[in-house]
């Protein structure tokens, strides 16, 4: 990373914090600090909602996923527009009319205090742990690629987030989200153009797309129903719907974003915009990864994209084996370059027989490279069975660092930091809201408006410190992203069931839904422990069990109440 890149990186980060503080100045009460005074217009609600869910690991990992696995991950988002429609129809009016600060406050008004406590405890547990990983995961990748100490990278990210929120509150988060999101997407578009320009002369993006398609990277839709297959049309539409509905409807990091909207209409428009544009956005980011894959058909690629692990292997006891694999890989990629060039020429010639032969050679060339990759992963596993053998998070940044021009590298790094700040700031803000409104004010009873803002700022700093501290521990957890995704799905379904019961089942009361939630959580944990179904379906199970059991218990309690009532 050169001096101009450092200047761009530091200047952009300083601008994010300064801009957020300037736009968020003058918070005098809790409504201003936690809900931006309920003043946000729909474009800001939309971009803030989209920025919250787009963490740095999304921008690091998604192109890598496109590179390794093609477009199939896009199906995960098929349920999102449906979830947005249902949320707009039932959840937003309920929250807005209740004038609540947090989603869990609504549960107390609808049911009782113990149901609110259960839901806010589930949220604080799940989101508090996830916040550590949200900071740690991108910090790990950035520190590996930049040669920084991961601990100090976490501290830097945590400090930037704490400064941004404590001085500006929700308004600062919302305004900074818009700026950061614009820079991230602008950077991704520029990166896409640079990838296409980096293709060899005479090879266009349509040729690259054709190569990626022939090698199975344009597998966007799979209509076969298989509950054990993580991404297909049905798991995306049904499981994805429940997951997205749970996340946007019950997770305060999202609810807090659209509760800041100046009216029901602005919150609705923000969510519908998110439902419409998130899917094309994810497709585009995956497609950037597919183009990186096509680019490497014509250029030598690393045997393993994680440079620290590669270096460790080369310097370790299996160094000779690793160097032999690197040589085999270099030869295989050279052959692959020839087959890719021949394929493009065959496309140009229009000769069907020549094209069919070129397709077979192309596939064979890729298979040879993948064979060497499999052998390399086996070598890593043999050296250290606990080592991480997935390098998808490193693919995109490795490409950026080696193939993009000076200045743009700094901008991409700033965009990654911005994305990390986006999701972390929304998480910290949500944890602050829930801690102050659902815990502190209930126990302490609140105070003056200024006192509550000071307590909120203190809570923000504490949560940032907790996240940085837990990031230290997260380093020992192994596969972080998978752990957090599964952790979220273990709780989201139950929480969604509680909220849907509140919105839709008017006769059900607090005690019934409280015990139904306990039963549902046990059922979800049983699914996790005893079955192999994809984690997306846990959300369906939790939600359905809460609503079903709540209805049954409600009927039982009602019958008993009538039986013991005096004549």
């Amino acid at each position, binding site marked *: 990373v050169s001096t101009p890149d450092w200047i761009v990186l530091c200047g952009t980060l300083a601008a994010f914090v300064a801009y957020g503080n300037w736009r968020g100045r003058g918070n005098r009460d809790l409504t201003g600090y936690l809900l931006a005074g309920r003043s946000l217009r729909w474009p800001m609600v939309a971009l803030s909602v989209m920025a919250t869910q787009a963490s740095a690991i999304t921008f690091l990992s998604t192109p890598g996923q496109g590179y390794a696995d093609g477009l199939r991950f896009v199906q995960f988002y098929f349920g999102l527009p449906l979830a947005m429609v249902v949320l*707009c129809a039932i959840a937003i*009016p309920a929250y807005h*009319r209740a004038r609540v600060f947090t989603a869990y406050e609504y549960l107390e008004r609808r049911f009782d205090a113990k149901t609110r406590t259960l839901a806010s405890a589930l949220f604080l547990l799940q989101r508090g742990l996830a916040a550590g990983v949200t900071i740690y995961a991108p910090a790990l990748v950035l520190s590996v690629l930049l040669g920084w100490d991961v601990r100090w990278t976490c501290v830097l990210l945590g400090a930037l987030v704490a400064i941004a929120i404590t001085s500006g509150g929700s308004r600062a988060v919302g305004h900074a989200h818009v700026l950061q999101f614009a820079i991230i997407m602008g950077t991704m578009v520029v990166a896409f153009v640079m990838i296409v320009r980096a293709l060899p002369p005479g090879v266009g993006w349509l040729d690259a797309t054709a190569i990626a398609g022939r090698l199975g990277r*344009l597998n966007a839709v*799979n209509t076969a129903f298989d509950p054990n297959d993580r991404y297909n049309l049905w798991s995306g539409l049904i499981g994805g719907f429940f997951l997205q509905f749970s996340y946007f409807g019950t997770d305060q990091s999202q609810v807090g974003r659209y509760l800041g909207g100046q009216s029901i209409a602005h919150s609705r428009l923000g969510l519908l915009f998110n439902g419409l544009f998130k899917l094309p956005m994810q497709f585009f980011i995956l497609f950037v990864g597919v183009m990186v894959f096509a680019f490497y058909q014509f250029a030598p690629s690393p045997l393993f994209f994680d440079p620290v692990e590669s270096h460790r292997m080369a310097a370790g006891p299996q160094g000779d084996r690793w160097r032999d694999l690197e040589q085999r890989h270099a030869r295989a990629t050279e052959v692959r370059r020839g087959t890719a060039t021949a394929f493009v020429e065959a496309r140009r010639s229009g000769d069907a027989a020549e094209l069919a032969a070129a397709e077979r050679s192309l596939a064979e060339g890729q298979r040879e490279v993948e064979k060497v990759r499999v052998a390399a992963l086996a070598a890593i596993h043999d050296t250290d069975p606990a080592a991480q053998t997935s390098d998808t998070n490193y693919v995109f940044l490795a490409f950026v660092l080696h193939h993009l021009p000076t200045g743009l590298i700094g901008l991409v790094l700033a965009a990654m930091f911005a994305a990390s700040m986006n999701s972390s700031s929304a998480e910290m803000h949500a944890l602050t809201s829930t801690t102050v409104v659902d815990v502190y004010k209930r126990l302490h009873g609140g105070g003056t408006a200024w006192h509550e803002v000071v307590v909120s700022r203190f809570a923000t700093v504490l949560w940032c410190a907790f996240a940085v501290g837990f990031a230290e521990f997260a380093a020992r957890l192994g596969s972080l992203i998978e752990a957090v995704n599964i952790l979220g799905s273990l709780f989201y379904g139950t929480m969604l069931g509680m909220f849907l019961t509140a919105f839709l089942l008017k006769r059900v009361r607090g005690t019934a839904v409280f015990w139904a939630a306990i039963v549902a959580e046990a059922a979800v944990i049983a699914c996790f422990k005893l079955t192999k179904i994809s984690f997306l379906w846990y959300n369906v199970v939790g939600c359905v069990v809460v609503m079903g059991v709540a209805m049954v218990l409600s009927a039982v309690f009602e019958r008993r109440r009538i039986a013991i009532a005096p004549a």
Partner: protein
Amino acid sequence: VNEAKAPGTSREPPVPDPPPPILGRWANLYALVIVVLLAIIALLSWLTRRFS
């Protein structure tokens, strides 16, 4: 007892729902979102078949 003060329930007087800026009714806007989703899925299905 808590339900007596529950917001958004039928016991509250209905609050007027402001219309969306386009298409006149929220239901129409929701239908548009679903139509766009179906169009995207159809486009991606075509892409999968065309290039694979």
